[in-house]
């Protein structure tokens, strides 16, 4: 299985280098990759349907407990088949759809990467590696949405989509780590056995919230759904493959996968029912207001994703069977509708459904595919859609007290989904063919055959639901922790209440379709409410964040060095002051232990004090720098008094150099300005005195502490005996701690080089590397 997953990535890598050979006629060959994979996965159907679970394990990062453990059970198999099967058709379709495109190789590269990632996602048994692939699908989706990267709208949609799914991804990461910590393993199979412990843990709520965050963003649930319509900026094969059939179902996959681990609890079921319910109805209503075919399809996709979440929330065996069937149903008809839309767009140059009609006259096979898909989406017999819809009603009717409300919600959603399916699959082909479309012709077979195959499949398995019942659906139901005994897929259940509900749905839907034509006016009307749409609210929030960020950054990084210095000093004074006066030890200075001041010291102190005053009062930078130099020299003299002439010399040269460096730099700065006002100076003054006081207090307290003199005594004792030097300080400098001195010499050397280059090298405007 690892090879199967990696083949997608290798294919992409191969295209990076050999892409140019694959842009032309050979492009269609790339469809062989998903086809091969499809055959490979199909070969497992028998074994999996017999209850076998195929596993493969590879070590990756065992330190983190992250391993490439793959498991192929019914649920994984269903998704793998969808990914590779629809992948094959989309790969083939693309060869014609983007024929001659300059970057066709890149496109296949991204698709290949996506396919690999998506397969990895549905096959991983290790939660972290599942997350790895999860993120990779988001990234490949980003590149695919932004494929027409010179269009601003594409770029924006790509970023928005990645921002939404990416933020969900980070929640997923946090949730996975928490879950892994609670369960003590990242293996999902093992988690299923630990389910009671996980549900009983105090972190259960956190885990559920975080994983919901991941699933809802990825599967476009309200209020995070808005990235999906934007993602329609991608070329149609991408919309078909990622944003309808596979990637957006990753969230659904996650929920199904974790149903046996986390499911069955009130919070799990209720949240899913509510969010799924809102999503399915809200976005189904939205389809009424769209005129762009892909817009209609996007919203109806969201609606179906809502239905799936809703069904998982119901959580009964009926509901989960319905979910499994619905995944198949939706993948088949929605992919068909998208591919058909792609054909229409490709041949007529428009996707505006208000101007499209009568196209059956010029492209009959496409019309047939569209029609079959539309009736499947409507849930008309004998398509598989009918089976799916029945199961939905069956599940809502079994929900006790809430069955009426839920069933009505399901019916109204289905009515609207029917409407959307008809608008996309039937409306463009019926009616009168407008003059300007009379020259439209059929696309190549690579384009019309894939939707036809999908549409026919929907019909065939509708008539013989046993094709998927035993081999696939049962496997899914078992994988999500159900017995798989209760429900059997059948097209015909006889005349019963559910059939009546179906009939009501169809009647209402068809009525709606005939009464309510898509119109630009309605689309404009609803645009007026955009300001309360989640997308706008989130974008507004985003721009609020931007303004806040700008403010915050400007307040702190305000360009004034003096503010930087005072912020740092303030931070230090507050922090250290707090610690000094709030510590467990009471603040205490032992003044009796200090020696008396000498006259030399007093004079030097006086000089220092005066110079500092001079610095503070200086009217030019030069004066200030020179006065600072005097302070430095006074410190040197202190060293002399305490009999460290060598130290004094070092200090002396460093000081001198620093002053020179400063003076040089100063000369390239603008003239000295007195920019601080009175208030500012007082604040600065208080801060400086506070800082000075604090350091003084600390020093005094330290001085009154007992000292361990081992090291200094060693120096005093051994300077002459071992190091043969009479001056202890000298010996310390050149021998005991000679490395310090060596490095300080290097410091001086570098300083000298720096001064030299500052003096000599002034780049002219022409030959400088930087120009900002």
């Amino acid at each position, binding site marked *: 299985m690892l090879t199967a997953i990696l083949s997608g990535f290798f294919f992409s890598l191969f295209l*990076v280098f050999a892409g140019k050979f694959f842009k032309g006629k050979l492009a269609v060959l790339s469809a062989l990759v998903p086809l091969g994979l499809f055959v490979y996965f199909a070969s497992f159907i028998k074994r999996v349907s017999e209850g076998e679970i195929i596993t493969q394990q590879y070590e990756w990062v*065992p*330190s*983190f407990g992250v391993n490439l453990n793959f498991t192929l059970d019914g649920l994984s198999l269903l998704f793998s088949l969808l990914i590779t099967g629809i992948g094959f058709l989309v790969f083939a379709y693309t060869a014609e759809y983007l024929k001659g495109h300059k970057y066709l190789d890149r496109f296949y590269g991204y698709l290949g990467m996506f396919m690999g990632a998506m397969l990895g996602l549905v096959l991983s048994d290790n939660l972290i590696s599942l997350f*790895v692939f999860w993120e*990779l699908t988001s*990234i490949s989706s980003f590149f695919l949405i932004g494929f027409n*990267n010179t269009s601003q709208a594409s770029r924006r949609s790509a*970023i928005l989509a*990645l921002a939404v799914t*990416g933020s969900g991804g980070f*929640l997923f*990461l*946090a949730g996975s*780590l928490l879950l*892994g*910590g609670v369960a003590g393993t990242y293996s999902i199979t093992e988690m299923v056995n630990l389910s009671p412990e996980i549900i009983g843990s105090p972190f259960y709520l956190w885990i559920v919230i975080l994983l919901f965050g991941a699933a809802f963003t990825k599967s476009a649930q309200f209020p995070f759904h808005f990235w999906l319509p934007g993602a329609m900026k991608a070329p149609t094969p991408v919309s078909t493959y990622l944003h309808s059939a596979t990637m957006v179902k990753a969230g659904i996959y996650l929920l199904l996968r974790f149903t046996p681990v986390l499911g069955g609890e009130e919070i799990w079921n209720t949240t899913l029912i509510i969010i799924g319910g809102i999503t399915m109805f809200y976005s189904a209503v939205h389809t009424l207001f769209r005129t762009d075919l892909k817009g209609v399809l996007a919203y109806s996709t969201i609606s179906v994703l809502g239905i799936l979440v809703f069904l998982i929330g119901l959580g009964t065996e009926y509901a989960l069977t319905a979910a499994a069937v619905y995944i198949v149903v939706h993948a088949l008809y929605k992919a068909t509708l998208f591919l058909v839309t792609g054909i229409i767009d490709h041949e007529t140059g428009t996707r505006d459904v208000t101007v499209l009609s009568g196209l059956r006259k010029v492209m009959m096979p496409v019309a047939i595919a569209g029609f079959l898909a539309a009736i499947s989406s409507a849930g008309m017999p004998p398509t598989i859609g009918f089976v799916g819809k029945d199961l939905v009603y069956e599940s809502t009717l079994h929900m006790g007290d809430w069955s009426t409300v839920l069933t009505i919600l399901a019916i109204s959603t289905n009515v609207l989904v029917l409407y959307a399916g008809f608008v996309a699959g039937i409306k463009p082909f019926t009616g009168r063919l407008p003059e300007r479309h009379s020259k439209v012709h059929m696309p190549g077979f690579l384009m019309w055959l894939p939707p036809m195959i999908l549409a026919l499949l929907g019909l065939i398995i509708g008539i013989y639901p046993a094709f998927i019942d035993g081999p696939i659906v049962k496997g899914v139901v078992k994988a999500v922790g159900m017995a798989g005994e209760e429900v059997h897929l059948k097209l015909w259940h006889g005349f019963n209440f559910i059939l009546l509900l179906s009939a009501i749905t169809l009647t209402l839907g068809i009525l709606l379709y005939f009464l309510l034509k898509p119109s630009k006016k309605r689309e404009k009307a609803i645009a007026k409410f955009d300001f309360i749409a989640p997308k706008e609210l989130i974008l507004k929030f985003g721009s609020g964040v*931007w303004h806040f960020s700008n403010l915050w950054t400007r307040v*702190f*990084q305000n360009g004034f*060095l003096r503010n*930087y210095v005072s912020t*740092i000093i303030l*931070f*230090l004074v507050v*922090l*250290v002051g707090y610690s000094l006066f709030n*510590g467990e*030890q009471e603040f205490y200075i032992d003044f009796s232990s200090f020696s008396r001041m000498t006259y030399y010291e007093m004079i030097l102190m006086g000089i220092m004090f005066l110079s500092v005053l001079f610095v503070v009062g200086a009217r030019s930078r030069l004066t200030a720098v020179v006065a600072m130099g005097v302070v430095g020299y006074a410190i040197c003299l202190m060293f002399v008094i305490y009999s460290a002439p060598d130290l004094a010399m070092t200090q002396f040269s460093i000081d001198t150099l620093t002053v020179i460096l400063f003076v040089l*730099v100063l000369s*390239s700065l603008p003239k000295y300005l007195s920019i601080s006002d009175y208030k500012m100076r007082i604040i600065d003054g208080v801060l400086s005195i506070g800082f000075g006081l604090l350091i003084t207090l600390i*020093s005094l307290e*330290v*001085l009154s*502490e007992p*000292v*361990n003199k081992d*090291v*200094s005594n060693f120096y005093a004792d051994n300077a002459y005996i071992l190091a043969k030097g009479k001056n202890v300080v000298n010996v310390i400098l050149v*021998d*005991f*701690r*000679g*490395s*310090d001195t060596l*490095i300080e010499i*290097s*410091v001086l050397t*570098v*300083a000298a*080089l*720096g001064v*030299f*280059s500052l003096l000599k*090298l*002034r780049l002219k405007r022409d030959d*400088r*590397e*930087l*120009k900002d």
Partner: protein
Amino acid sequence: MIEQLLIYPLLLQMALAIILMFAWNNTSTQKFISISGSTLNLALAVYLLMYVWQNGTQTVQAGNWEAPFGITFVADTFSATLVLLTAIAGLAVSSFSSGSVIPPRLKFGYFPIFHFLLLGLNGAFLTGDIFNLYVWFEIIIITSFVLLTIGGEKAQLEGAVKYFTLNILASVIFLTAIAVLYGLTGSLNMADLAAQVAAVENRTLVQVNALLFLVGFGIKAAVFPLYFWLPASYHTPPSAVSSIFGGLLTKVGVYALIRVFTLIFELDNLLENVLLVIAVLTLFSGAIGAIVQNNIRKIFSYLVICHIGYMIAGLGMMTEVAIAGAVFYLIHDIIVKTNLFMVSGVIYKLKANHNIKKLGDIYADFPKMSLLFVIPLFSLVGIPPLSGFWPKLSLIGAGWDTENYVVIGSILFASFVTLFVIVKLWGEVFWKNGEKLPELRNFPYFKTLTSVQKVQMVAPIVFLGLVSLYIGFAAENIQQLASRIAFELLDNQEYIDAVLNSAKK
């Protein structure tokens, strides 16, 4: 001879710096010496790490004065790893400098000073003496200051003044902290200090002392609210200089924080909270700072700050997992940040602009190069399984373990903003149709460079890209390294024994 192995990187860098000064005007000789010397240094560093991995912590007592009386150089796994990372980044930037820095700068001591900087970095990582560490910091500051100013352009000097002032302030605080420490214990040897500090009775002064170190190193590490020097200066020098700065300068501060707070001071409640609050605010400020910038290098500068927060958070949580996360992040970050600033340098050579609003077309014009640039960009974001992803596992996991939910939130926030910023940058710089930029007359455009120069600029990006990929895909090896480092840091007896007992042998 092998006993002194750990000081060879220091000797080599110093020798290189001195030799290079003799080739003052001969830029091609300088380039040759620098690149080949850096290659040799890399080999040495690899060998050192392997040696330490197999034989445990190594020490050298300078001048053969036994610890704690002389200066001890110590290579434990942490130090050896950082020396290796410095060698990797050093080689990359050495080559990048050869390709991109213009001759006038090279003729004013660029390479000697660059190697002095590497010397300082290696020294800071290898010293086992707190005052000696200060001295290495001095050389790092002075060399980086000179590297910032070579060329004497106005923007450079303005940035350099801020850089220098605030870093000197940091050094002053650091020095004050050393003075207090010496006053309390009478020792400077870090291994010795571990025991001495624990014995001090006045715990308040110890805490005050620890906070002084925290502020001093915090400025170097560019944490909130002490980071101001970084955004003020990183965008001003030549890209090669930004690269080595972005990769290593702040990391020395982080290294020092980790070392001091695992070896010398124990984190008490206050310190732990201060570190975590700082981490959260650093993640936050750095992230939102990056959102509002338009200059590529300023964006990267703020991201440097932002990501320091991860490491401080790891340090603040102080579990073995958290420290391993911080160390892993450190390893990843040095490589990727160095690389990013080199990427910005190549982009600048291509378009003569740093403004993402004006740039564009890179993907269309240079598809292969763009794919190359994706590696550091996405590694930075931590798109799994690239290098930035793995340490977050440890950090977030440790966050759950220690119930630091705000820290987890900040890590997620910072990761998200990083993702957003990089993706926006990708859209603007690589995808968009850029503005028609005026052709500058004397600008050394990439296309006007010799093919040797082009290779010198692109090869290090490939090199570091491969290293990043290695970190990502062979995360097991790196995590084992990081875990061992974390173990050694928290159980510091091996370090202490290696320093203090080797003398008695």
